[in-house]
């Protein structure tokens, strides 16, 4: 085997963003969420990802705001580190090495310099027992510091971050596990434990699921698996504690959150309804229904104006004060199985697979963003466990992306299988697919495969079903069934059109039948027993005379269609065959001893172009060649197969992986550097006029900071602002009264420390500075502009 150091298997996009509770920044402009091994910073208004904070080497398991600086966040990870970030610039400030995998992180304003993390019990790393420890973060200037000063607070806690909460001003911490609620008072250094009786009939149905403490009063709200919420009071005594019960949820309460003022309590569960309870008037509730999927986390912004909910379908919804959904950040939805297989939309080049229940998602691989969801089933989704829902099981695009065919099915115990075949036409005006035809019960049994004919003259769809038939659907004035075919009542398993659409190969168990779609004549049958045909694939371009088939008995066969004979065959347990639409290459994923291997080859040549052993553990069931938007110019022979398109595949654990070459990585790095420009500043007319000066000034200031030699007083005439002022025509300049202040400021000797006009905490000084000295009149509108501008462009105050 040749070692290919240049080609690496990398994660590319589609990571989970609903793993942990998102964090909203103090000014509500950004939303931070843990996403795989990085922390993503999203703009809460535009839904765009602003920064990707990379540095952790394992799953990020929690984020918390730094209580002492609102522009910084802590993140913890299973790699045993806590990192401090500046999220506006995306800079890693410090790394604290704890040494144990961390499962969640808590901070409290009262406990400065201390973070609380949940780690496994120290003595046994593989144990299921966890403890809450306080970590004293050492004050040191180094980038990486070891924080070894741990002190245990609570033993035997749940690793879920919702199962612990800090109470009023950090005086106590409440943690729940199983049927026990434990409250630890820091002053008294004493824990209190409260137990619930297990439900008599339903076992441990009333186990605790989440805890939230009231920020102003001594009250703890706990959620339970039976859908009840309990409000605990008087818990600083062992005996006289009380609790009241609220019940609305019919499933488990997944998450609870008090608003910062403590006036409302938010709860969410599988019903996908955000419930807002009024504190002290608990019979008054507000609902925000139909949020799409089960709520897993709720976060509230520090000023209480924004809520955001994480959902089980990898989605974050931003809600303005329980009234209106203002933004939705949607990641790649990965349900339990990708039943539709991976597809590429020929128009948008987006990856298409089934997403939310009853939907098809279009996911842009280049931008790592979901483009849109297409509602296939068009039925109200009932969020309830144990219901048989309609599922999108098959989908196919035609060659130009004008038509989309989908199959949805619902199997209910004791009743017939319901299948619908839907045909969607692309609407240029709305730029999406519109339902054209619905065929109810197109087959009597499950549809196993479906493909469009690639021939440009006719629009034809072939569906293959377990009922032993394949049907050809032809678009005339409307869609109609053109042909029903079968072969000895065998069950067909797969089908494939040749590249020009003149041949259709259908695999009926051990036999491959080749049909002519124009006359529906059975041209020939091919078989290479033993073993049923698992997958079929025609070669492309110069290799289009070859038909490849894999069988269940570990055989990969290649037939020559011209001679109707077997060209070659090799014993291989191929789980998936995938042809590159832009070249002759075919990728075969083989599973061998629990691992997957990849072979890329041309059907005409016996030697593989590229092979990689032990790609990942488990079988690869889904893969797709995605065309590149820009062709790579790679000269190495073994990397040439990646020039035109990129191979994506889904591992058994539903991770979306791809192959990346060195040249490509270099290019990506370069483009990410270009993106570093601070685009978070609001573009106002004022910014357009003066923003560039300010940037330059900042750069100069930074230069001055880094290079002590450059620290010298600038002459007024050297200032760019002055130059611009002197050389621009008077009629395009802003009013003189405004420019005056700048002129005056440019005369001042700038101190190298924090410049007052950049500090948003001193707006009063701003006012005085801005007042034009010769008139004594304050120009209000410009002042307002100016203040806004300084606030928006405020640099980090480290």
């Amino acid at each position, binding site marked *: 085997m040749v070692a290919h150091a240049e080609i690496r298997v990398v994660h590319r996009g589609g990571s989970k963003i609903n793993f942990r509770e998102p964090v909203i920044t103090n000014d509500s402009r950004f939303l931070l969420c843990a996403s795989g091994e990085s922390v993503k910073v999203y703009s809460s208004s535009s839904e765009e990802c602003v920064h990707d904070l990379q540095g952790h080497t394992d799953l990020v398991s929690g984020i918390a705001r730094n209580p002492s600086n609102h522009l910084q966040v802590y993140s913890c990870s299973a790699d045993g580190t806590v990192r401090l970030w500046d999220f506006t610039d995306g800079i890693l400030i410090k790394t604290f090495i704890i040494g144990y995998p961390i499962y969640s992180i808590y901070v409290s304003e009262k406990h400065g310099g201390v973070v609380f993390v949940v780690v496994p019990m120290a003595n046994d790393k593989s144990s299921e027992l966890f403890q809450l420890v306080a970590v004293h973060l050492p004050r040191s200037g180094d980038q990486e510091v070891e924080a070894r000063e741990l002190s245990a607070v609570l033993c035997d806690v749940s690793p879920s971050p919702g199962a612990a909460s800090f109470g009023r001003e950090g005086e106590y911490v409440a943690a729940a596990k199983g049927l026990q609620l434990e409250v630890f008072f820091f002053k008294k250094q004493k824990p209190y434990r409260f137990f619930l009786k297990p439900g008599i009939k339903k076992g441990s149905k009333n186990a605790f699921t989440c805890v939230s403490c009231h920020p102003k009063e001594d009250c703890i709200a706990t959620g339970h698996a039976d859908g009840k919420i309990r409000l605990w009071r008087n818990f600083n005594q062992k005996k006289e504690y009380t609790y009241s019960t609220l019940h609305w949820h019919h499933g488990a309460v997944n998450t609870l959150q008090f608003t910062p003022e403590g006036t409302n309590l938010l709860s969410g569960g599988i019903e996908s309804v955000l419930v807002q309870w009024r504190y002290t008037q608990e019979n008054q509730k507000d609902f*925000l*229904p*139909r*949020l*799409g999927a089960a709520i897993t986390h709720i976060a509230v912004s520090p000023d209480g104006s924004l809520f955001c909910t994480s959902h089980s379908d990898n989605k974050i919804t931003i809600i303005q004060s329980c009234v*209106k*959904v203002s933004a939705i950040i949607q990641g790649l939805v990965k349900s339990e199985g990708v039943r539709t297989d991976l597809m590429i939309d020929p128009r948008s080049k987006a990856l298409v697979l089934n997403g939310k229940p009853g939907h098809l998602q279009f996911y842009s691989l280049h931008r790592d963003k979901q483009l849109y969801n297409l*509602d296939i089933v*068009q*039925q*109200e989704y*009932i969020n*309830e466990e*144990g*219901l*048989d*829902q*309609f599922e999108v099981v098959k989908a196919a695009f035609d060659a130009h992306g004008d038509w989309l065919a989908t199959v949805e099915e*619902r199997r*209910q115990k004791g*009743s*017939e299988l319901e299948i619908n075949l839907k045909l969607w036409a692309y609407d240029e005006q709305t730029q999406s697919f519109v339902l054209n035809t*619905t065929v*109810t019960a197109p087959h009597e049994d499950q549809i196993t495969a479906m493909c469009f004919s690639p021939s440009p003259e006719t629009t034809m769809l072939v569906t293959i079903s377990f009922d032993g038939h394949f049907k050809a659907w032809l678009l005339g004035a409307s869609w109609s069934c053109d042909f029903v075919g079968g072969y*000895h*009542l065998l069950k067909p398993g797969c089908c494939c059109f040749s590249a020009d659409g003149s041949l259709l190969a259908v695999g009926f168990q051990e036999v491959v039948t080749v049909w002519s779609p124009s006359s529906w004549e*059975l041209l020939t049958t091919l078989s290479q027993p033993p073993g049923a045909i698992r997958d079929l694939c025609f070669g492309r371009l110069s290799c289009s005379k070859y038909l490849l088939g894999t069988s269940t008995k570990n055989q990969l066969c290649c037939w020559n269609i011209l001679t109707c004979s077997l060209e070659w065959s090799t014993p291989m347990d191929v789980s998936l065959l995938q042809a590159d639409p832009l070249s002759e290459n075919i990728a075969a994923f083989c599973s061998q001893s629990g691992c997957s291997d990849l072979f890329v080859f041309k059907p005409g040549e016996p030697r593989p172009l590229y092979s990689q052993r032990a790609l990942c553990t488990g079988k690869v069931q889904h893969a797709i060649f995605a065309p590149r938007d820009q062709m790579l110019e790679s000269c190495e022979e073994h990397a040439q197969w990646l020039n035109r398109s990129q191979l994506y595949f889904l591992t058994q654990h539903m991770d979306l992986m791809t192959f990346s070459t060195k040249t490509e990585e270099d290019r990506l790095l370069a483009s990410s550097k270009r993106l570093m420009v601070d685009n978070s500043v609001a573009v106002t007319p004022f910014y357009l006029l003066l923003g560039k000066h300010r940037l330059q000034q900042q750069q100069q200031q930074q230069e001055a900071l880094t290079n002590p030699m450059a620290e010298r007083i600038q002459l007024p005439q050297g200032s760019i602002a002055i130059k611009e002022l002197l050389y621009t025509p008077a009629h395009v300049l802003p009013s003189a009264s405004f420019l005056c202040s700048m002129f005056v400021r440019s005369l001042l000797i700038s101190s190298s420390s924090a410049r007052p006009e950049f500090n948003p905490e001193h707006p009063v000084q701003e006012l005085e500075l801005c007042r034009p000295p010769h008139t004594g009149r304050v120009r209000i509108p410009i002042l307002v502009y100016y203040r806004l501008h300084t606030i928006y462009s405020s640099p980090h105050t480290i």
Partner: protein
Amino acid sequence: MASFKPTKIPIYPKLGEKVTPDTLYWKNYKAPVQIKEFGAVTSIDFSPLAPHNYAVTASTRIHIYGPFSQEPVKTFTRFKDTAYSGKFRSDGQLLVAGCEDSVVRLFDVSGKVALRVFKGHTKGVHVTDFTSDCYHILTGSDDYTCRLWDIPNSTELTSYKEHTDYIRCGTTSKLNRDIFITGSYDHTLRVFDARVEKSVMTMDHSQPVESVLLYPSEGLLVSSGGRYVKVWDLLKGGQPLVSLKNHHKTVTCLGLSSNGQRLLSASLDRHVKIYNTTNYKVVHNFDYAASILSLALAPDDESIVVGMTNGVLSIKHRKSPEEKQEVAGKQRVRPVYRVFVKGRNYVPKKDDFFVSKPVKSHLAKYDKQLKRFNISKALDTALENRKPDITVAVMKELDRRGTLKNALAGRDEQNLSQLLNFLIGNVVDPRFTPVLVTATEMILDIYQAVVGQSSVVDRQLVRLQELVEREIDYQQDLLEVLGMLDTLFATSLPRKEVILKTSCILSINLHLVRNSFILYL
């Protein structure tokens, strides 16, 4: 927050009803205007002059209505007894009418008093008409005679006494001033020529003749009587051409559409049927509330006027495209409240920025209840709905939600019998069977314990059982027929195909053959 997705009502293919140019043409009428007359409306006649007023003879009056008025523009009341057969002259100036008191009266359309009174018949006069030269009047009476009268000096010209029963219909030729045709209860149609003493042609309808109609070419004559409509070829000496039997009660009136391409027949069975005059197939059908006595079509088919035994006059006007727009425009600008009008008529300028108001979606009542998870109420609402496809769609939705059983449970006798009625009506409909069979099973599960407590429910359950058994037998028969057909098809296939399909298919065929043999034996 996504909006609630309403229950999807599947569109089933309509069987039988085809959309043809005819159905489109005859459906393009507005909802009928109904006017109550004093008695049964026996005759309707349109004026040949421009506004096309029409004379409606009912009871002792003749009302003349304008084309769009719902009030009579003129009324003639000078009848001592029931009036019959108000007819306009071809210039639209004069109107003639018979009466039960045997007197025929001639009116000026603009006047009130009868211009001429023709006395001579001894019994009620049911038929009156002008000849094509406008100077003579044809009358037919219950005294078995038909007579011709001269208008200027109001004298009787000729009298024919050939019919042996009441003369109840007749018409004059529009091309020849001397030719006229009468139909009588003696089952005959007679063609008379005023220049000859006797009838020139006799046709036997073999039913009391209720109405006659001459084609504009006057080569064909249509007569109706009993349940039959018959077409006669006059040029071939009164040879019967077609006999139509599409009504199940007496056909009382005939009409011809303005282009002469469609024939209309109205009957006591409350239907108006429209025939194509080239192949005499029924192309459309109108339903009315009561037995129809008279029918008339305005020129250019602008309106269809039908008079009924209960005295109701029903007028359907044709929809005109510009009128449709006008109606829509009217609705748009109609000021409900002054506030709503504000800014309504504002036309946006070219560079205006549009801010669209969110469109409020309206949900059906059952959808609103489904949204609130009121499942039993939603099922009740759906059951009240007349359309079974909606009811079944709601049941299917409940089944999908896993709550159909809850929705079906807890019903009292009345509710349950309503539900069972629905099932009896629709369970064998192949479109609804999959859902309704599930529902039926659930009902049997739930209400098993209370069987025998209510006679109504028990009776319905027995009916349902019979229905299902019959359907199963029927399906079995069908499958048997299908098997036979398959055998026939298999034997008629070319030999090559049979070879291709190997022993497996052959054995199945043999099996089928054996089956069919068993059936035959």
